[in-house]
């Protein structure tokens, strides 16, 4: 089986409209989270990171659209347009499109939406992205809760290995909506301050908004400096509870073990863990248990939620792209918001951004439905 790489990439976020803007701000430990007072979304002010509306509109108009698109479609189009342009790839029948989203255009269910309810169907979203760029294959939409972003990369690799495609563009995104915030608020899971993953004083999550995209390819001539090889990946269910994480970290532990086995690496070969770290009590505790069971308690680890909040269906993709840049820059980025360990098992949280020679990282995510994923990526050797 040939190697599968992650290559050209883009991040549209509160920091700007490319990956470089996000990496620059993360390097400087600048959070994208701000207090937002928008009563159309939540009665009380909340912390979030959102893509600036006027600039998004400008970037979208630069693409010369010929029909009307929703806000999420604009985000995805702007991100993917950049990644496709960088890659210089011709979109032919060997090129696939995978879209990762939990809720898609869920805002069209709101009263007064400019779009018909039909746009809430995820295949409709897929069709809009497909037709805009002239993809020859239908979009494959993956909606698997908060693991969607990492799982989408796994799915891309698996379709390439099955010889369905040579290249797959993966794009992910979700909106900050009344739908989502009212739901997490009903769970009492929202923090009323910037989130603090793994910290003793953590009080819950922030929801943020990004669109991210990456080229997954088996073509070793289509690589960038930050490219990585996808070595091994797995997704295992907790088989325990649909909204609460497993008390034993079962699914995450099994996902990590299966990914390590496929990657043919031992825990001591993992230089860095880009963890999920939502800053809810139960999630972070579950992760600590799972990482200890896998012998990863001494491996430098961060959660990037302190920069972006939880960006739902994009999060795993976003955080993998940042992991790629982290390897390329040989830098461990600080787990923003962390002060003092607040989980029952030891973890090596990255407290300040530090230069370090690193070549292999583990990305994990967990979500509602008891789903978990783990994926291992390595620098491309000469």
């Amino acid at each position, binding site marked *: 089986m040939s190697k599968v790489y992650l290559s050209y990439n883009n991040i549209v976020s509160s920091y700007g409209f490319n990956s470089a803007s996000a990496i620059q701000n993360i390097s400087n430990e600048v959070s994208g989270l701000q207090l937002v007072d928008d009563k159309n979304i939540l009665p009380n002010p909340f912390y979030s990171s959102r893509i600036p509306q006027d600039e998004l509109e400008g970037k979208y108009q630069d693409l010369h659209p010929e029909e009307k698109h929703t806000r999420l479609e604009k985000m995805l189009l702007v991100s993917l347009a950049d990644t496709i342009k960088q890659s210089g790839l011709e979109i032919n029948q060997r090129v696939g499109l995978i879209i990762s989203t939990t809720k898609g255009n869920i805002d069209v269910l709101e009263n007064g939406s400019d779009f018909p309810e039909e746009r*809430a*169907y995820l295949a409709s979203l*897929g069709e809009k992205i497909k037709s805009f760029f002239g993809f020859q294959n239908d979009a494959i939409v993956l*909606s698997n809760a908060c693991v969607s972003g990492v799982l989408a990369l796994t799915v891309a690799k*698996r379709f390439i290995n099955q010889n369905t495609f040579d290249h797959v563009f993966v794009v992910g995104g979700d909106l900050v909506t009344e739908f989502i915030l009212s*739901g*997490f608020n*009903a769970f009492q899971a929202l923090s009323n301050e910037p989130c603090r993953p793994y910290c003793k004083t953590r009080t819950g999550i922030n929801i943020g908004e990004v669109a991210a995209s990456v080229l997954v390819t088996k073509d070793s001539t289509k690589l960038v400096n930050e490219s990585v090889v996808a070595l091994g990946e797995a997704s295992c269910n907790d088989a325990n509870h649909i909204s609460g994480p497993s008390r034993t970290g079962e699914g995450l532990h099994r996902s990590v073990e299966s990914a390590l086995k496929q990657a043919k690496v031992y825990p001591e070969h993992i230089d860095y863990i880009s963890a999920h770290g939502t800053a809810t009590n139960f999630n972070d505790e579950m992760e600590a248990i799972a990482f200890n069971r896998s012998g990863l308690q001494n491996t430098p680890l961060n959660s990037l939620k302190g920069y972006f909040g939880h960006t739902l269906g994009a999060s795993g993709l976003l955080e993998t792209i940042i992991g790629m840049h982290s390897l390329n820059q040989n830098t461990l980025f600080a787990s923003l918001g962390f002060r003092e360990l607040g989980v029952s098992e030891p973890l090596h949280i990255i407290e300040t951004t530090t230069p370090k020679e690193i070549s292999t990282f583990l990305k994990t995510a967990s979500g*509602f*439905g008891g789903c978990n994923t783990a994926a291992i990526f390595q620098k491309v050797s000469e």
Partner: protein
Amino acid sequence: MNNDYHIERYCHIRNNDISLDGISLYSEKHDSFKDFAKATYKHLEINHSKFFKMDNLSKLAFLAADVLLKEETEKNVGLVLSNKAASLDTDRKHQESIKDYPSPAVFVYTLPNICLGEISIRHQLFSENSFFVFDSFNAESLYTYANSLLDEQKSEKVLCGWVNFDDGKYDAFLYVVAKKGTFVHSEAEINRLY
């Protein structure tokens, strides 16, 4: 690549009927899916109290999976389900409730993969899960992804299929892909059985 797999058995739930390998297990007209699901649950003598807390999509997937996995001893069964409406049936309920009092018990079902969690809990499967959304039944993607899980030894068997619940209408077609079985695992055969 091996790709020499088989379909062991399949289940349909549509039009007030639940069937295994094309043979009806229970069929009776009910006014709503909720009533049909409850009657099916009783008829099949299922004992799983959480069933009654599930949304329609999860009930639909749960019942079809139960018929297929009831006597299954293999625990490494990957789950690869798909549909058109994702969780829109429950999404509409949550959206409607926002102005009053949004309920966590409803909100948790506003993700289509929750039904995979329900099946995993019921059958104690710590296996691969993926939920895809397509405009219509897509045998090609299910076929390819199931092959991938089996080829890469991520799963020993794969429970695949389509579970759609939208606007009161329901359609489920689930099947088990294994190394041995009655039917050939091919795109054409999946479409024929669907």
